[in-house]
């Protein structure tokens, strides 16, 4: 094994980049990056195991391949940044590789149903969007059992990639997912993370730029009902000048024991001049009992930016909104549906495909037990 790359210290960016598991200590829960996480439930991801790899269900076109983990087309540069991701990279036997040829235009979404054999699994997925290509990739995590792994989106120069990752797992399931995105010159990336269920889900999206002029949006919609935990720990690492980033995560929580954590880290490096960045987290508590932690962090190494801002707020479901809608004859269940739809619409409206958008909204509403009156 080669020696790990050790990056200069910043408050927000990872320090160690390595494929060697032992370069990372076993987390004990007091480290800054692990302090919100339920370490006990995640402990199974801290030691290597002999698990299978997540594959793809059904027939798929030439774009989507199930390849050996040593396939030379998989990213050689990408390095894990914590112990779970290092373990998953080292122990996965196969990967799912989605290759969008350069200059190819795909008008309908490329839907990929990820599946495993129902047992605990490692996951490695890479989406390579070639230069000047335009596509939408939808990853449906139809996996069961516990899953640990990484998704990579490598966006070529001036490519336009929308990538949607949908986790709608069964209640006891635990998942740990990195999502690394590298944005090329003048490229446009839209990442949508939809997380609707599961016992303990921790996602670690990281966006960085390979060249100037890239645009990245990371949007999330998450839902917790009852005894569930979700952590979304986002890092946007502005390494290049004249790039933009926009992070919007919205969460709705209901029931005793629901706990969400949103960490929005944005690092603007000295060389990343003329950038624009904004991040926002809104949480809606639908009932008494849930807890939502929300921590935006902005670290500026240069003052030469166009704009840099963040906002975070957690509010209760507003009884005055309910009263207002009901006073116009709208029954309570439908009024709640309107308010929740309205809350998520900012994120879900970014999905171009109307069928996909409606089906996701329907999933959210059925999870919340909101009856459809239409």
């Amino acid at each position, binding site marked *: 094994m080669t020696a790990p790359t050790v990056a200069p210290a910043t408050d927000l960016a990872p320090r160690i980049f390595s494929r060697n598991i032992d370069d990372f200590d076993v987390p004990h829960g007091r480290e800054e990056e692990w302090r919100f996480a339920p370490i006990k439930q995640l402990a199974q991801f801290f030691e290597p195991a002999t698990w299978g790899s997540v594959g793809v269900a059904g027939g798929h076109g030439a774009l989507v391949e199930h390849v050996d983990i040593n396939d030379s087309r998989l990213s050689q540069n990408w390095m894990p940044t914590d112990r779970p991701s290092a373990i998953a990279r080292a122990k996965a036997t196969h990967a799912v590789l989605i290759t969008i040829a350069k200059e190819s235009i795909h008008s309908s979404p490329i839907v990929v149903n990820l599946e495993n054999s129902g047992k605990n699994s490692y996951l490695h997925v890479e989406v390579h969007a070639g230069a000047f290509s335009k596509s939408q990739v939808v990853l449906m995590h139809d996996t069961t059992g516990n899953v640990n792994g990484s998704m990579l989106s490598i966006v070529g120069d001036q490519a336009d990639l929308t990538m949607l990752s949908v986790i709608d797992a069964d209640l006891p399931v635990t998942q740990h997912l990195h999502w690394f995105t590298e944005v090329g010159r003048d490229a446009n990336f839209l990442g949508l993370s939809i997380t609707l269920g599961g016992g303990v889900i921790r996602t670690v999206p990281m966006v960085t730029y390979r060249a100037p002029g890239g645009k990245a949006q990371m949007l999330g919609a998450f839902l917790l009902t009852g005894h569930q935990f979700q952590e979304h720990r986002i890092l946007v690492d502005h390494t290049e000048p004249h790039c933009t980033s926009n992070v919007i995560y919205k969460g709705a929580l209901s029931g005793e024991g629901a706990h969400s954590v949103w960490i929005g880290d944005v690092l603007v490096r000295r060389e990343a001049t003329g950038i624009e960045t904004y991040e926002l987290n809104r949480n809606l508590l639908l009932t008494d009992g849930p807890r939502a932690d929300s921590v935006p962090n902005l670290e500026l190494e240069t003052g030469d930016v166009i704009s840099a801002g963040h906002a975070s707020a957690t509010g209760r479901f507003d009884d005055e*909104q309910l009263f207002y*809608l*009901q*006073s116009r004859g709208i029954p309570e269940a439908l009024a709640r549906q*309107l308010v929740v739809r*309205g809350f998520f*619409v900012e994120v879900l409206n970014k999905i171009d495909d109307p069928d996909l958008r409606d089906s996701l909204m329907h999933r959210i509403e059925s999870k919340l037990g909101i009856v459809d009156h239409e």
Partner: protein
Amino acid sequence: MSKLTITDLHACVITDEGETPILRGVTLVVESGKTNAIMGPNGSGKSTLAYVIAGHPKYTVTSGSIDLDGEDVLAMSVDERARAGLFLAMQYPVEIPGVSVSNFLRTSITALRGEAPKLRTWTKDMKAAMSELQMDPAFSSRNVNEGFSGGEKKRHEILQMGLMQPKIAVLDETDSGLDVDALKVVSEGVNRFKDQNDAGVLLITHYTRILRYIKPDVVHVFVDGKIVATGGPELAEVLEADGYESYTTAARA
């Protein structure tokens, strides 16, 4: 012909510290085609009366009754009251992020009528109603009350009233915060609604200014949770000249 009958209504707010009575025996009748004005000083409980009629969960009715054409209003949920023909134009309408005015109005009308209005006539009706209130057509694609000016909020309330066609409408300080031009537009909207639907109107206001544009049939003076005086339109002129002082002193005595 509709009739809203309020009889000896008592209501309070329940907090951790206990019960705070606000309405202390309100008796009032609002009939089709008639405008009742309720005037009173700040804190007299007149807005609470409006909320209690609409069924706001913050207030608890301790005794008395509200009856609409033989139906027990207090037994109804908030949305049932609206479907029975009651409407409250609110003083402080809330924002509903992500819900457009057109979606909101259409959902409401569908709930009130029990079926969705035909798309073609609906769009036409909505446009006509908006133009009568001098509202920009782009208004319908904005989110409900989000970023609305004070005047826009009130016009939006009156727009809803015109489209929903209630039997009895309660207007809670619809005149507050309006400049005189907006007040005229809104008042014309109320008058048009009342004439076209032969509706009953309960107009709650702090100032007599709006009564120059909306002529009341009956004026009530509301102090300390109940009606302390009732008269014709001339009572409003007395209040304009003398204020509420003689009534508030009498109530305290």
